[in-house]
């Protein structure tokens, strides 16, 4: 058997290194920030989505009959998915005719209430909206909306308002905490 001589100095250095490595592993595994990162990321993402929702809603209900339908639609377009913009444009003519007839000049402010659904690439948010004055067809200046936002290459964009049947389905599910919905199977 061959004897390997180890000096007292090297032995102390090896022990110190082992202690430092072990302590480092323990610190990393138990560092409080580690667990908070994902929830922080999620909160940041939700903040982006709700901000996109607020901006889009405010543009939709910011109406000035004097500036014309095209200017109104272009503001909405900037914050919408291409498909969502086409969907909105398809029904815009009749809405705008009413605004012109009523000489509507309205501004809107909106607040995100809660995220009610999330499948990773799409989120549904409940919003409250306050108008400076009523729009034709209603005397309300406060209302609630449910909107779909979709993740695109250029960030989260407004896609569309939920239909009545979809809203009823969400309301029927009650105020259960938001859960991530997995993609369904055909």
């Amino acid at each position: 058997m061959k004897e390997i001589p180890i000096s007292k100095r090297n032995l102390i250095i090896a022990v110190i290194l082992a202690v430092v490595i072990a302590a480092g592993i323990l610190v990393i595994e138990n560092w409080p920030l580690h667990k908070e990162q994902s929830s922080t990321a999620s909160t940041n993402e939700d903040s982006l989505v709700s901000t996109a929702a607020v901006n889009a809603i405010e543009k939709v209900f910011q109406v000035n009959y004097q500036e014309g339908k095209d200017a109104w639609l272009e503001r909405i377009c900037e914050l919408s998915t291409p498909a969502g913009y086409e969907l909105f444009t398809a029904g815009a003519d009749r809405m705008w005719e009413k605004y012109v007839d009523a000489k509507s000049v309205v501004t809107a402010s909106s607040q995100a209430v809660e995220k009610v659904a999330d499948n990773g690439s799409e989120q549904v948010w409940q919003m409250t909206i306050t108008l400076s004055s009523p729009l034709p067809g209603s005397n309300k200046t406060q209302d609630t909306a449910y909107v779909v936002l979709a993740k695109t290459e250029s960030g989260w964009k407004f896609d569309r308002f939920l239909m009545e049947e979809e809203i009823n389905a969400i309301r029927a599910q009650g105020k259960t905490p938001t859960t991530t919905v997995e993609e369904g199977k055909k």
Partner: protein
Amino acid sequence: MKRFFLIIVVMTLLIPSAVYAQGTDPWSEVFQPDGNLNPDLIDLGVTTDHPDWMSIELPFGQSIDLDANYHRYQTPSGNIVVLPSASTLFFMAMNPQESGLTGSYGSLGNGYGSLISFLGLVAGDNLDWSKVQAEHPEYTSPDQFWGAVLNGQQDVWTYFSGWGFITTLLQMTWNDGALRSLYLLYLNGSQNCAAIPGGCSGIVTPPPPPRECPDPTVSMQQPVLVIQKTAPNNPLVVGQDTENRRGADIQVRVTVPPVIFTWYEPIYEERDVCRSTSSGETANCNTGAGSAINDGVSDTEMVFKECRTHVEHLPDAVASLQATAALDAASQDWITGRLGQTHYEAFVHQANFTLIPGIGSWTGGCDGGGTCTATGQALRVPFADPGTFNLRMDVVTTGTRFLGVPITQPRRVGIDGTMQVYVALPALVP
């Protein structure tokens, strides 16, 4: 990619099944034995409608009223064949009672299987099947679930796990109006046209025929529509053409061939007859009923001789004409995306133009042969954004009447076109 998939899905359902071409089946009037459409069908063209069940309610009582879109045919016996667009069919399936889907002959027969396939293909990936199974174990397959939805026994909205597919489906239909996957048949639809999808638009309603002569017939050809850019060859965005701000000229043209209404007039001739006497009359002839003495009086009566054919060329004039231009989504993305990377703050100046009536106007009329035309143009349209503009023209006709009787209902027809607007970009040449 999602859009491409949906197009493939719908295209796979486009081929009509020859199974319908059976002798006594009403479908035998629609399809020939080889599965092709029967040439006797009257093509009623495309009809759009704004039903409540395709309306998206917005806050403050606002609503986006989407177009339901059907291509329809009328059979010689008065049945109506309806081909809804993909999105219209989807909403019909979601609202089977309100949309009139359950009233169709097709939905009771083979049409159900096709509808279930359609729903599975366009919406199946967005159905939370595990949730369906957890709450309704009685459905052992998605097809059973879709069948219950179509029967009105099951609400589907609770089980969708995605929302964007509806928007994509709607967008796909607008850009690809020909994507129609299912034939629905409405028996006696021409007599009950108010209750069928698309209503009475274009339905042929000939007057009651005289007994001795054949039924009147109606034939009509589809209007020819053109929407195109006429000048200049390569329009430049007006922002780079600061001196002239030339823009582009758009021209539209519609030619509506006459509706050919053929009817048959019964011709009678006066003939001497010996008829039975009435009280107080004196007999002066023998009716030939076996009496040896005179038992009738001389008279005249109108007797059917022949059917005289009349061919009417009825003008179906243009009642309204609208033309629009819209920068397509890909071009808008290119401007705000790729162009924006090299040209700081590139933005879309104006994506939508109302060409006619608006920037331009239209005029129309009919000639002595019953052919009606309408033309219009929008000159120097100030396109400020480069890319592909989708051109769209929608026309509504007046319908036709003969001697005050409606023969055909107003028709709604439309056409899409495209044009390019260019921008000059600097390039570094090595």
